[in-house]
């Protein structure tokens, strides 16, 4: 079993956590999220080609115009690979960009007609985002209640605080890196919260177990450190497995799911970090204070004399 003194360096880790949080929240407010067409809406083109084209062919032309994450749908087919009729939704384009796109389409995919050109609103409204956030808040309340029953109030509150920390840091870093997000950000955040919850419970379970069988004279600091070291192998293995799997999705997955895998990747890294270096130290400080306060006055007096 390794013997890292995680809790002894808690001040350092709190500073690190705080700096990351400030950067994340700062990016969110100053830089903002780079919202894609699901949120902002865009322009739909109904294109009628002379020869059938595939979604991949159209996307490669759009990628050349830096609008690769547009929505490309073949019309008249649900699962066919090619069609003459294609529906494309791009972000709002300048006149120059539109002209450049139209020429590129013709030179790569042959002659075509634009049978429809319309401005459309986003498919994803702020009401949907608000409804989603509300659902998550209510779910958090349920998690707190469950953890209060199975653990106690301190585990429950530090656990949920760290879950929110992970979610906020991830969204903030997504704003910092500024890659364009689609409505996939919703499942991404839900995965991060779920992963974070699982990680917190597994590690808190070990602390809970060690608290029950606490060795005589073992300080809270030693106990918390011991718990974290006992679960360290598991923490690393699970994090590495999930991180590698997500990296594979990011590298090999399609253009339209890049935002999903990138956000999850960030979230999992911070989920693993915050269980050990944010949630547990936070829990430690709270319980340590309580233990000191409830220690018999005589012992405190004896300590003071020494």
């Amino acid at each position: 079993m390794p013997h890292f003194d995680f809790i002894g360096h808690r001040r350092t880790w709190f500073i690190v956590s705080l700096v990351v949080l400030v950067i994340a929240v700062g990016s969110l407010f100053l830089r903002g999220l780079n919202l894609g067409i699901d949120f902002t809406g865009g322009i739909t083109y109904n294109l009628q080609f002379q020869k059938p084209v595939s979604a991949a062919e159209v996307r490669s032309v759009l990628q050349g115009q830096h609008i690769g994450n547009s929505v490309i749908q073949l019309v008249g087919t649900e699962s066919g690979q090619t069609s003459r009729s294609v529906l494309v939704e791009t972000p709002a384009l300048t006149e120059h960009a539109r002209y450049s796109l139209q020429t590129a389409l013709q030179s790569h995919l042959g002659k075509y007609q634009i049978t429809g050109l319309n401005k459309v609103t986003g498919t994803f409204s702020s009401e949907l985002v608000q409804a989603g956030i509300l659902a998550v808040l209510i779910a958090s309340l349920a998690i707190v209640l469950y953890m209060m029953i199975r653990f106690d109030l301190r585990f429950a509150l530090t656990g949920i605080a760290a879950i929110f920390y992970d979610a906020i840091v991830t969204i903030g870093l997504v704003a910092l890196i500024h890659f364009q997000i689609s409505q996939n950000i919703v499942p991404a955040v839900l995965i991060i919260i779920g992963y974070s919850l699982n990680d917190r419970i597994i590690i808190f379970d070990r602390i809970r177990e060690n608290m029950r069988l606490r060795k005589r004279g073992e300080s809270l600091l030693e106990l918390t450190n011991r718990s974290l070291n006992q679960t360290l192998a598991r923490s690393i293995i699970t994090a590495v497995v999930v991180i590698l799997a997500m990296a594979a999705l990011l590298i090999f997955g399609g253009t339209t799911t890049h935002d999903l895998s990138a956000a999850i990747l960030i979230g999992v890294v911070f989920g693993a970090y915050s269980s050990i270096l944010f949630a547990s130290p936070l829990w430690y400080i709270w319980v340590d204070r309580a233990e000191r306060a409830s220690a018999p006055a005589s012992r405190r007096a004896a300590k003071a004399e020494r």
Partner: protein
Amino acid sequence: MRGRGILGLILIVVVVAAVYAYFTAVNPVTRFVKEGLDLKGGVHVVLQATHPATHADMLKAETIIAYRANKLGISEPSIQLQGNNQIIVDLAGVKNQQEAIQMIGQTAQLVFKGPQGQIILTGKDLASASASIDQGYGNVVNLQFNAEGTKLFADATQKYLNQSISIWLDKNEIENANVQSVITGGQAFIYGGFPTLTKAQQTADLLNSGALPIPMRIIDAQTVSPTLGQDSIHASAVAILIAMALIILIMLGIYRYAGFIADIALAIYLILVVGALVAFGAVLTLPGIAGIILSAAIAVDANVIIFARIRDELRAGRTLGAAIDHGFKNALRAIMDSNVSTVIAAAVLYYFGTGEVRGFAVTLIIGILASFVTAVGVTRYLLRLSEDTVLVRNQKLFLG
């Protein structure tokens, strides 16, 4: 006892072969699982206002159509305003396309008229509507008027006592009834014109959603390919296979034989999830896949936790059998707490969420249940089976 162990190993090989054959030859995901707009495509419907419409009208119409689509149980429809007077509705997984399209575009104008055809009240005066079966009248739609409607209805039933009031829905007269008493409670029901309870329920849903502020006509309805793009979906499917292969190899590398068993459990987990999706007729979308990915990660984690505990017990000097028993026992509490809290959270998300959030919650609940059965149950069973084999003598080979 050795025979049991060998039997177990044969079982494992058979299961692996069966899973491989099942997913390659039968391809259950594309064949049996219903997929959403983002993965499979659907119907692209363009509705256009038949009269000049303001932006506010269009926004209201969009909200009403979204409400109706939800009521119809269409999973994650996509609804957009196009240009000045059009609404695009993309629908997937609709059993009866024609019916869905019709219902979404319907105006649902409810009008109560007096004996001389004078309008008494309209759908605007309704508070709510519901459907039920009445002993005497068959399928009925119950109406509850709002304060204004209650007053109008009370006045009208007094004024037209012993005369007839007619009820019109979308310009069809569906009922003509004699007023027998003054009704002050603001309640009424309509009958006739509802051959089935479903039809009555649909009418109630339409009335609840309110009438479209402007009449709309369907000007185009076409089948379209997935919004995520056929090309991207293909790439992502390949990526998921690569990720799965990575997980399988890592587990094998770290935990050797036990890792192999965890991989078997993961394969059975996949079959259970796909089976459950088919059985419940759930519609698979990208958020749904996200739920499966999360529960798969939790399933792998459960095995990592269990194996770590068994290693602890072995290090403490227990025999393999005792170590497996104690390891599972110690790991179970953490796994249970994690699974139960996740399922509770997912149930809350399902209840309060819409669209994407619900799609995620459904597969997460299914996935967690399946992962508990496989990562705990199947793994334990197979480990116990192999306890008696030659592997036991080589602990390194057994658990890495």
